[in-house]
């Protein structure tokens, strides 16, 4: 593995049905408690309704899902925000990890991250997050979320390999923030209803689930 290696995710939002297999398989791997979600599936949607004189409906409703863990960003704002150095980017594979022993649970990284990737463990008072399933990678396996996906909508590899396979994708779509903030290692295939990452007309519809 060279120093340039950078792992990343690919998410096909035209296939995702919001089934949450990724979210739950991730929790099972590390016995994550309720409230700590290393992978979250955002339901984004919008559209307007009107009723005609005869009671029939007109609407232009749309919705789609985006499954997001940590994008192991090239400019990780969580790392910059961390006062102790607990949050760090690994040189060998580009994964962003937390060294629990150094973490003081100040939540600065969580506040800085526009993807909500750092998730505070309320019992242990330390930050936790997607670790890229590094122990599975060492065994030559994919992260749990990737292999769990019933719709084959998620992939993971070095960014070099992902770009070779999928190209640069369609650019990020709402509710994701603009890529310029953190240079995320995430390639998105856009849903046909995809709204722009900045200024989308819809809203997140499932706040209780993410």
């Amino acid at each position, binding site marked *: 593995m060279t120093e340039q290696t950078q792992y990343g995710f690919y998410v096909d939002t035209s296939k995702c049905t919001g089934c949450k297999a990724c979210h*739950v398989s991730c929790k099972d791997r590390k016995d994550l408690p309720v409230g700590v979600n290393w992978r979250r599936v955002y339901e984004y949607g919008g559209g307007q309704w009107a009723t005609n004189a005869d009671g*029939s409906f007109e609407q232009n*409703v749309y919705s789609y899902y985006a499954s997001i863990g940590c994008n192991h960003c090239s400019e990780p704002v969580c790392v910059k925000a961390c006062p102790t150095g607990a949050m760090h980017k690994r040189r060998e594979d580009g994964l962003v990890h937390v060294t629990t022993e150094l973490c003081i649970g100040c939540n600065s990284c969580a506040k800085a991250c526009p993807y909500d990737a750092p998730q505070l463990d309320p019992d242990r008072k330390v930050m936790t997050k997607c670790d890229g399933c590094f122990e599975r990678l060492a065994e030559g396996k994919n992260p749990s979320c990737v292999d769990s996906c019933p719709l084959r909508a998620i992939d993971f590899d070095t960014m070099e390999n992902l770009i070779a396979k999928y190209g640069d994708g369609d650019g990020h779509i709402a509710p994701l923030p603009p890529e310029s903030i953190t240079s995320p290692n995430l390639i998105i295939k856009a849903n046909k209803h995809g709204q722009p990452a900045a200024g989308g007309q819809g809203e997140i519809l499932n706040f209780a689930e993410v």
Partner: protein
Amino acid sequence: MERRSFLKASAALGCAATITGCKTSSDDANVVPPKPPVVEEVQTWSACLVNCGSNCPVKVFSSDGVITRVETDHETTDEYGVNHQIRACARGRSLKQRTYAPDRLKTPMKRVGKRGEGKFVPISWDEAASTIASELQRIASEYGNKSILKHYGTGAYYGFSSSACFNRILNLNGGFLNIYGNYSWAQQNEAAAATGFSSTSGSNLLALKDSDLFIGLGYNPSEMRQSGSGEGYDFLNALQSNNNLEVIMIDPRYTDSMVGKEDQWLAIRPGTDAAFAEAVAYEMISSGWVDKHSKAFLDKFCVGYDKASLEQLITDFKASGDDSKLQYIPYIKPEDNYKDYILGEGKFVDKGARTPQWAAKVCGIPEAKIKAIAAKIMNARAPFIVTGAGVNRHANGEQAMRACYMLSFLTGKVGQPGVSNGALPQQGSLSRSGLSGLANPVKEQISFFTWAEAIERGHEMTARNDGVRKTEDLDTPLGADVKAIFAINSNALINQHSDCNGTAKILEDDNKCELIVVCDCWMTPSAKFADILLPDTSWLESNDLVNDSYASGIMGYLVAMKAGIEPLWECKSMYDMCALIAEKMGKLGEYTEGKDEAAWLEELYQKTRTYSNNANAEPALPATYAEAQDIGVFRAFNGTAKLALDSYINGGKALGTPSGKVEIYSLSMALKGTEWNFNDKVKGDYITAIPQYQQTWEGYEDEDTKEDYPLQLVGFHTKGRTHSSYHNVPWLREAVEDAVWMNPIDAQARGLTQGVKVQVWNDRGTIELPVRVTPRVAPGVAALGQGAWYQPDTNRTGPSGHIVDVGGCINTLTRYQPSPLAKGNPQHTNRVQIAKA
């Protein structure tokens, strides 16, 4: 081993030890067993056996007898249509938490409080088995075997240690009352059979490659069939591999089967699909298109399209001299034909034509859009129409299904590549041999849905009034009330049946039904109504042989399950617990036939090996069951595009209807509609021979309830449960919120904002839960994922005058009113009001 000891010790301290109900709050459900210190990991194959249609294999990792994690099939190169993996959904992936749930039933228990209160004390297996054996004998001799009911239950699709074990002991006791039908497909099964086919006989999704227009009415495989080799995955692949396909979805909700896969969503009001279908038919007929393009097809393959068709049928039947046909002649009324009905002519002139203008007001789809859909259907080369089961679960479900089926036949293209008949798509399957329940000496059958009514008036229920089957004649009563119920892996004793509050009242009186035995793994709402509770082993503790189940997509498979851990606490498999009961009955030899679990599994496996449709399984089935268990999963994908009614249209094989043809005019329905009794006070309780949109009680057009209950409430299958299975898993409750969906227009009118707690009520009950304000549901319609566990807060009374169900179970609001033909469950026909709690 320390971990095992801890789990066993916790059993003694658990809910069984004290005279209280099991606490099931999510607080203590969050407990996950700590990691054991030993690292050597064992992997075994199990499967998820709930009633979603698939039995996905799961890979269970355990260490020192404790499950450490659950993964899924990853054994192939995952090429779709070749060897794609059978990936479990979120539910299967949560099985560790479900297996170790704090509300697991840990020992046999008997009721000590009022029935339904949930107060139990632990008893020995010996006492449980003795009590059941002696009560079975007593009830059979006092009331007859027809008074013993094996309830509808689908919580565990085992092949060997299944609820058939209970059939064996009930049959060794002289038999039990049979049920027909089911809560999923009651109306559509009758509607499809009356029309000439099975409700799951549609062209398979591989046939979509030849289609240019897909129309789904209430069709939602992406939420219903979530398996990674399930129908949802087949649907995605079918759509993504056909760029020429236009996809139109018609549903009250913008479902996850859309989210970008659709070209157009048409929001429709619940229970009005027939009105929409009739308006499309009007366009096709009144424009002269049918006369020009499909009249010859209708004349050849169908009966009842027009008057001449029915006159011809009378002539043909008379000429046949066949008594089975002659008996229908008095019920064939040529003036009741479909064409006259749609056009508002002849006998139907007073009803008026079923125009798009009329239908738009009813169904909510604008007139112009109905006309546009009709034009698309007429212009399509190969229209593929599917009517989903949501359409059938209504007070008028039978005729709603039939009305939608008609569209395919009106095109005259059924039997051609890329065309379907309106039924749900066919699926693939491998076959497994299962344990026999032995022969039942009792012949009579009641509708699955009428069991609680049969507790009160089974003695007088008849074929003519109640749809009882296999009685001597229409008026011979069943002749027995239900006195004993065996609810095996069933939550339909309260939760999944209609009208929870009303059902609870019937069950609470233990002078009526005198014995309720519940076998399950968890303290479900139904378990709380048991007199005797039997703790089953979970799938992960079981050796068994299962197949893909009944709606698992085109991929067929078998799973040879091997217990990953020993049975927890005092749990026993159904096979073992029924052996104890059989022993007390003095029938152990007949029960076991001299075989133990290993011998049975080997025998069932060897039979399974002989089935011809398992011949192509990969890998090939090895010589012994033990070897099969080590391999785990066997699969085969049949890549043939299969066409609906191919053997009839293209092969000339007659259908199962009295005429042998597709019956637009159903002879069996004409007969039943005339002979049976219906209730004048129940709006919509009648049967006509041709499909007709029926206004019903609590339908959109029901003026009696419109004012008090302005919203229609429709249930749906949430991704976070399978029916009520998995409700007690905190990971899933977090991942998929239980909230009542409401359109922003309705929310604004009520001052409701996202996530606030609301009460939903009608005359039958009140539930309390958060509201999800979302544009994904039509105005005037509330939608709620079914299956949440009924949890009465007996300290509070809701606006309905009942306890408040803080569990948010939709069946606290649904009505017990059997549908006209199937005597099935109308659980999507509800009107409610909603306000801030």
